[in-house]
């Protein structure tokens, strides 16, 4: 794996080589194609061949595929019901995040988080929320010409306009020409400290709950 991470990143999230976690590239390959890419490399690219025994190549391809598996496929242990209570109670997650329309608006919608993200990504977002800020959720403060201040998340901005969602769920479509100032804070609004707030068992429950949030059942899952 050390050889892989040199190009694909320590967590497989890309670098010189493609992101293996997003699932977009890997998902389109058959098992045989993935095997071939690892064994033979991709001529004309920086992907070299890896001359390993067949069973090692199969193990590696299986691991690579698991990296992009959505969290819902992991069937985590832990109590989802207790996790739900933590989500809306002690964790106060639902103050900012909505699931099926219930909850706040200032954080990303989590209705399909288990279907769209890997468990690694979910775990990282909870335990180290500053490690990655979802595009469209940077904290922003705009001051209009009349002095009125608008604070929220920047769903988008450039030199000419800003689209700001405030904590109350109101959307402000602003022209930069009508602003006195605009300040983007390159930090997340999501509070840290989850590892201290929750016990290990509570975290397991919370992850069990989040990983099961999906809009569509996982293929082959009869539950």
């Amino acid at each position: 794996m050390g050889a892989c991470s040199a190009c694909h990143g320590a967590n497989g999230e890309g670098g010189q080589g493609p992101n293996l976690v997003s699932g977009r590239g890997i998902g389109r390959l058959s098992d045989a194609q993935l095997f071939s890419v690892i064994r033979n490399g991709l001529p004309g690219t920086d992907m070299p061949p890896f001359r390993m025994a067949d069973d090692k190549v199969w193990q590696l391809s299986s691991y690579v595929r698991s990296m992009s598996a959505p969290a819902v496929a992991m069937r985590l242990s832990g109590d989802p019901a207790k996790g739900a209570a933590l989500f809306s109670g002690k964790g106060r997650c639902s103050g900012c995040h909505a699931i099926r329309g219930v909850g706040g608006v200032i954080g990303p919608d989590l209705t399909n988080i288990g279907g769209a993200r890997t468990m690694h990504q979910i775990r990282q977002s909870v335990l180290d929320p500053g490690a990655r800020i979802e595009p469209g959720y940077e904290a922003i403060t705009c001051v209009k010409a009349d002095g009125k201040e608008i604070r929220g998340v920047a769903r988008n901005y450039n030199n000419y306009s800003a689209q700001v969602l405030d904590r109350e769920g109101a959307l402000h479509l602003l022209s930069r020409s009508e602003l006195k100032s605009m300040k983007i804070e390159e930090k997340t609004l999501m509070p840290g400290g989850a590892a201290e707030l929750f016990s290990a068992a509570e975290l397991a429950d919370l992850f069990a709950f989040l990983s099961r949030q999906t809009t569509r059942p996982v293929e082959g899952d009869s539950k």
Partner: protein
Amino acid sequence: MKALLLVYCALTASAQVTYQDLVRSPNQEWLNYNGDYGARRYSPLTQINTVNAGRLVAKWVYNVPGARRLETVPLVHKGIMYVTDSNAAFALDARAGREIWRYRADQVKNSRVNRGVAIHGDRVYLVTTDAHLIALHRVTGAVLFDKEYASSKAGYFSTIAPLALKDAILVGVGGGGSGQRGFVAALSPEDGHEIWRFWTVPAKGEPGSETWGNFPAEWGGAPTWTTGSYDPELNLVYWPTGNPWPDFYGGRRPGDNLYSDSILALDGTTGKKKWHFQFTPHDVWDWDANEPPVLLDTEFRGQRRKLLLQANRNGFYYVLDRVTGQFLHAKPFVKRLDWATGLDDKGRPMLAPKKAPTPGGTKICPSVRGATNWMSPSYSPATNLIYVVTLEQCDIYISSAKEPVPSSGFRGTGSEGIPTEPGVFFLRALDVTTGNIKWEHHMPGPATMWAGTVSTAGGLVFTGDDDGNLVALDAATGRDLWHFSTGHTLYASPITYEIDGKQYVTIAAESDIFTFGLFDAR
């Protein structure tokens, strides 16, 4: 937490789209696929007009990531524009063209075009290729529900912009070319549960089933893949249906094949059929009636009537009474029409001899794409004209009596173009009550586009042409006032809206959303 939610609800409630908003559209906003419930696509906006249309300039272009063939008709509400691609919806700042949110149904394996969202309350509604209705919060894009309404495993798919009524979201399905049984369904705006369903092919023993011989209803087709119209006063939905299956061979489905190629007038509350009118009985040419039904109250032969107008794919322009379904008038709107010698006094076509597909191929006009198709026409009360994108073309139609197998790609064979007789597009302005052509605008090009129209109180009609231009024509005369080359083939209908006193015109073009407004020196 509860307090926060209450505040949120209170602030957003005023921005919700009400039923009255939908009835009043279009005004500054554009809230229905075809502008208003009557599919007239007539905007009261006048800022852009016959005097200044030459000063239109591009305001912004939004590239829809990954898009290749956009057929979306944008909706605009409270400064936000909603557009779609296959299994995806995007909210844009309608002044700036900047993305506010995007939603992708990444789990959907198959991919077809999508024609737009419906909006209702604080939600926008999107169908996915695999026939799910998805409700998204209009401001945040958050998923509120995801509900399957037809099985993709059974061959159903969906491309439609849903139609929002007061208490229901109406959807339809594709499948006319692969042997599925069409239906119109009313789904709950709250959770997507089905309120009513009308099957477009009657079950054995039901009225109309005698028009199919022994052919299985489950294979009959008559799909419902385009958005219908609605009369709020009559509470009647007017939904067009597509061809019977197999498309080009009718030997195993003797009879008229109701309710294919028809307009269905359905009670908006119950889905019960009030009347139907079939344009092309026993269709063997694939002439779906999925062209938008235009609803209009006007004088007809000295009497004020509630009319339903349709320029049909089969080449005839029809005038019906939409209260009763009575046929009132029809006239060809293309010169290349030879499959029928005319219509009788009930509107039934009188078939020309030897104008059905044959194993060896038969030249028949219009072509399989039709004299027009799903591209939207528009109407202007100022001119009393209806503007119809028209294709003059014939095809060689070929049939096969092979045993039909649903979902196998079998259509009873098909059609071929005639290389020495290329198709030619026109925008034709028809008198609404007579169907007489008042003027026409010739569109040189490869005859590959599918763009519709919008007309305005500024005396303009906008349309896409066959060379990738968005054009502005004088609605009264057809005079060419302005054009802009998008560099793309156009597969969508334009819209117009106004924000902060400025009027804009928007059209989707292959991979991009183009928006125009008057040149502003500031």
